[in-house]
């Protein structure tokens, strides 16, 4: 115990010194407390107020995020004794997360079914705001403990969100599947972490000892540990072969929750994966586990599995779920470059994916609200009944497919060029395979994305006699996103230069 004393003041000053760099997270915590207090004070009627506070708070948080850019001009910062690493990419990721969660917080109440939930939505806001803290931690985590904690944090919040509509059978079923699958994979991951800790003797990924020590241990053993950890991270990323839960859960959850699940944890998990692989990939004497090879193979498999499986779907949410798997694979392609260029392409791509996916689900939600349909085959002829929403849907899907002029295309272009420039240097055949698969699956993705405009516009209307339950908010939201996607498609440097 005594040997710790000299270090205490050091540690404390470190912790205190970290606080200025931790302002956004502190604000989120405060926001969390505010929302929870509002929830408690105002009871059932508090949903609206909670939402207002949460949204306003997110704006402040975004503002705080922006301020952080000045703090890291001189380079990255380790916080709280190397628990977290704050660097430029992390801030960008946090901004993406906060922006998307702001949109999502707005969006939750616009789903008629979720709104009709008898127990009110205020708890939902509490959970979401709490989860944003987890997401922030996930983005910055560079310590096995903080990684595990952040993942569990986000998972826990996600379980709750999925199962939120407790009176709905689908929702609870999805929750059950999600929680069982999630708990199991987190156990697997924890085991992997324990092995890593055992072999490396430290939890700190960036301490320099970790990679060095692991490099000296038998590669098979280390690989096993890493594979287990990757399985846990993959659970959040939903890549093959840990993607099984995705379609069921996405379909079962309330649509805004699906939007949440398909974007935020995934994006944050990418940041986490980047942090996780960095020490190993950039350790010169690293041998054994070839991250590029494994992640490339996973990426290829994921693209193929996600896109091909989506072709068979007719439920819009399920289709988008599979397509989300495909997009994960594509984003992995950017990741395996392990270059700054690849990283900026990755963030750009993920932001555009997030926006487009939220908009797509919002529009699916819109049709669900208006006509009570979830199957794409029921969209027949609705394009003429809801022209604006349908046009937005088309734009959003174009962006998801990656056709010009849309942000999805520029994202794809950046990813391709990042991968290509690496390929040009090392002629790694896996990168080439990734490129080809990426191109090929783009065509495949059209097979299912095209179903939506096909049904909306090309199929003749079977006169649907039903009143229009307009939900303007969703249309406005998706229109704004659609316009943004087009603008960023034409002028990507408005954005990419900050990535």
């Amino acid at each position, binding site marked *: 115990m005594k040997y710790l004393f000299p270090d205490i003041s050091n540690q404390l000053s470190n912790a205190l010194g970290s606080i200025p760099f931790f302002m956004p997270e502190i604000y989120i915590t405060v926001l969390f407390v505010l929302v929870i207090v509002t929830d408690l004070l105002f009871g059932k009627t508090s949903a609206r107020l909670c939402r207002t506070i949460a949204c306003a708070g997110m704006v402040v948080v975004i503002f705080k995020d922006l301020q952080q850019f000045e703090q890291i001009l001189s380079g990255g910062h380790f916080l709280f004794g190397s628990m977290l690493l704050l660097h430029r990419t992390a801030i960008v990721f946090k901004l993406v997360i906060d922006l998307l969660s702001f949109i999502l917080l707005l969006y939750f109440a616009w789903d008629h079914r979720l709104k009709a939930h008898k127990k009110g939505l205020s708890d939902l806001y509490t959970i979401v705001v709490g989860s944003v803290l987890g997401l922030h931690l996930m983005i910055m985590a560079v310590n096995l403990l903080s990684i595990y904690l952040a993942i569990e944090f986000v998972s826990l919040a996600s379980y709750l969100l999925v199962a939120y509509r407790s009176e709905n059978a689908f929702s609870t079923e999805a929750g059950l*599947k999600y929680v069982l*699958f999630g708990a199991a994979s987190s156990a697997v991951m924890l085991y992997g972490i324990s092995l890593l800790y055992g072999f490396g003797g430290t939890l700190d990924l960036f301490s320099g000892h970790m990679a060095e020590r692991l490099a000296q241990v038998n590669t098979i053993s280390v*690989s096993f540990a890493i594979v287990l950890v990757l399985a846990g991270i993959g659970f959040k990323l939903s890549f093959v072969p840990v993607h*099984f839960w995705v379609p069921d859960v996405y379909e079962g959850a309330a649509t805004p929750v699906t939007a949440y699940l398909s974007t935020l944890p995934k994006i944050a998990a990418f940041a986490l994966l980047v942090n996780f692989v960095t020490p190993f990939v950039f350790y010169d004497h690293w041998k054994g586990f070839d991250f590029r090879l*494994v992640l490339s193979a996973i990426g290829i498999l994921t693209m193929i*599995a996600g896109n091909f499986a989506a072709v068979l779907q007719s439920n819009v949410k399920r289709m988008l779920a599979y397509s989300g798997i495909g997009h994960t694979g594509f984003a992995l392609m950017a990741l395996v470059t392990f270059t700054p260029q690849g990283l900026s392409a990755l963030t750009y791509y993920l932001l555009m994916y997030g926006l487009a996916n939220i908009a797509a689900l919002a529009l699916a939600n819109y049709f669900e609200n208006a006509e009570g349909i979830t199957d794409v085959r029921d969209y027949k002829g609705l394009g003429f009944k809801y022209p604006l929403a349908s046009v937005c849907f088309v734009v959003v899907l174009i962006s998801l497919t990656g056709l010009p002029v849309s942000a999805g295309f520029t994202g794809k272009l950046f990813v391709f060029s990042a991968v290509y420039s690496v390929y040009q240097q090392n002629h790694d055949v896996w990168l080439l395979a990734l490129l080809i698969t990426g191109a090929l699956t783009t065509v495949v993705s059209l097979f299912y994305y095209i179903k939506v405009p096909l049904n909306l516009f090309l199929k003749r209307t079977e006169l649907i006699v039903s009143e229009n339950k307009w939900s303007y908010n969703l249309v406005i939201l998706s229109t704004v996103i659609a316009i943004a996607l087009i603008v960023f498609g034409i002028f990507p440097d408005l954005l990419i230069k900050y990535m």
Partner: protein
Amino acid sequence: MSKALPYQDIQTIYFAIAAVVLPFAAFVINFLFLGKSKLSGWVSTLAILVSSVLAAIIFTRVWNVQQIHVKQIWFRIGDSYLYTGILLNNLSVLMLGLVSVIALPVHIYSTAYMKDDAGYSRYFQYLSFFCFSMLALVVMDNLILLYAFWELVGFSSYLLIGFWFDRANAVQANKKAFIINRIGDIGLLTAIIILFNQYQTFDIERLFKEGGLIASSTIKNGLWISADIQTPVIWQYIACIGIFLGVAAKSAQFPLHTWLPDAMEGPTSVSALIHAATMVAAGVFLLGRVYPLFNPAELTTLAVIGCFTAFMAATIALTQNDLKRILAYSTISQLGYMVMAMGIGAYATSLFHLVTHAFFKCLLFLSAGIVIHQIKHIKEDNNLDIDPQDIANMGGLRKKLPLTFIATLIGGLALIGLPLTSGYLSKEGILITTYEWAQGKGDMMLLVPLFAFFTSCLTAFYVARMLLKVFFGDLNLQFLNPEIKIHIGDGGWRYKAPLVFLALCSLFPFFSFNPFLHEETWLLYGFSAYNSKSVFDIMHIAIPVLVNGASLLIIYYAYMIYMKRSTIVLPQSGLLYRLSFNEWYIDRFYNRVVVKFVLVLSDMAFWFDRKVIDGFVNLLEKIGVFTAGIASWFDRYIVDGILHLSAVIVQAIGGFARRFQNGKVQYYLFSMLLAVIVVFILKILIWN
């Protein structure tokens, strides 16, 4: 204009341009302004009249005097320039004059002949357009423009054959004519491209003049060598074959002759102008233009084919009952003579025959037109169901149509080649030259003059048969239905004047003052450069005497058969008869084999397109769906795939797979864990 020319030459050129363009102007005026007017006939006639006057002036200025060639840049492609220009030499002015002079009476005749037709104006549009194309064809100085007008001639012929486009036969016929002509066109185009490739120019003068590019190129060691290009000699042959295809198609040589008889579906005046006198001669004209290209062996082939065509067509003509068809086959036969003459080197004689043939064949057709017209009158007056062209229905028209009879008689005699007619001069010339040519070339080659001679006899027979059946005896129609009314006559001056004019031109004085010696024809002197020099010997007397004697005998024989109907009866069912009557089955062969083949081929291509290529795409699609199926199957049944490997637990899988059905979270967990461990194991295995 490229270089300074004397004023008179420039004027000549302008005359030539005017002569060519006037019919076109008539066409445009008729097309745009005279849609329904009867005036259109006279506009066209006027145009062709002026053209023929101009052609005559040009003829006097150029014939045996000089050669005028002017050219101007048309366009540039890459770094080669294309010129357009006019080449006036003996050949072109002869053709220019011939075409316009023949066209003039036909125009006049047509104004009367077509006066009741609804498409009167359209007819003259087409006719003027044809004259324009034909006149342009003969004066063009380069191959590509020659080809262009060559095809336009075919096109206008297409229009005219299908003039009555609501008649199914006419439409069939014009399609056939155009497509067969197209075969020739393709050959010609290929040949032109080969020549262009070889010599880098389309200019006829540069290519074919004495000491021109063709003359200075050689064939050595299997290579065709010109100034800067060497190509395998096969391409020289192909060029010749291509040109021959063009010639064969236009001039109806075997095997591309089948369109011509069918082309008689057009108005008879059209047949007279186009399918007897001018257009079909274009092939021979082309041969004249590119003559230096051919080497002796190729010329011999040409001669053989020409001879065969002449013979074949003559045999077919023997048994035909359709008046125009008989004439059509006779045309083919005579064209065969011309080609044969070209082949044996009797360049001038061939052209001479072209000219004489143009006149008398035109005459014959116009007369036939009157006959048919009158029979049609009878038919319409009496509501008979007959074919007005069938000579079986005719007879004894000698008295009813005296002028027509005389005209036909002159034409017929010229066709047979009896003395005092122009036909005698040219035909004897050909026969004599053929004989001389064949001497010393071996026995096989003697067959050529022999067949030519035999063909001549056949000609005498079918002409006699035609004349007798149409004009002698009694009108068969009246014989069959005695009560019919008949009011027919030669018609007005617009019928008569052309006949008279053409009949005069079919007599000897127009060409030579010596009715028996073709050597003295003025026309031949225009082409002395090419004509084979022949020594005047006994054969020059013997052959005409022999041929004419035979012809007279045969005419008598025919008279005995068809007039007396007593002595000899021809077999109507023999093999030869059927062969002849069915036109040697060539057309049927084409229909049954070639056309079928193409259609089947196209159906196959379409089938291939739908089944194989599209099928391949569909297969890819299926593969796509299948792969998608695999992916989802992989999702669901990943266990199966891997566990099947171990046969020990095959039984277990069934139950297990049943338990782990869709939507079961434990199944997912199992899959995930298994995948993780299997991937790991595989990775380790690959690693080491």
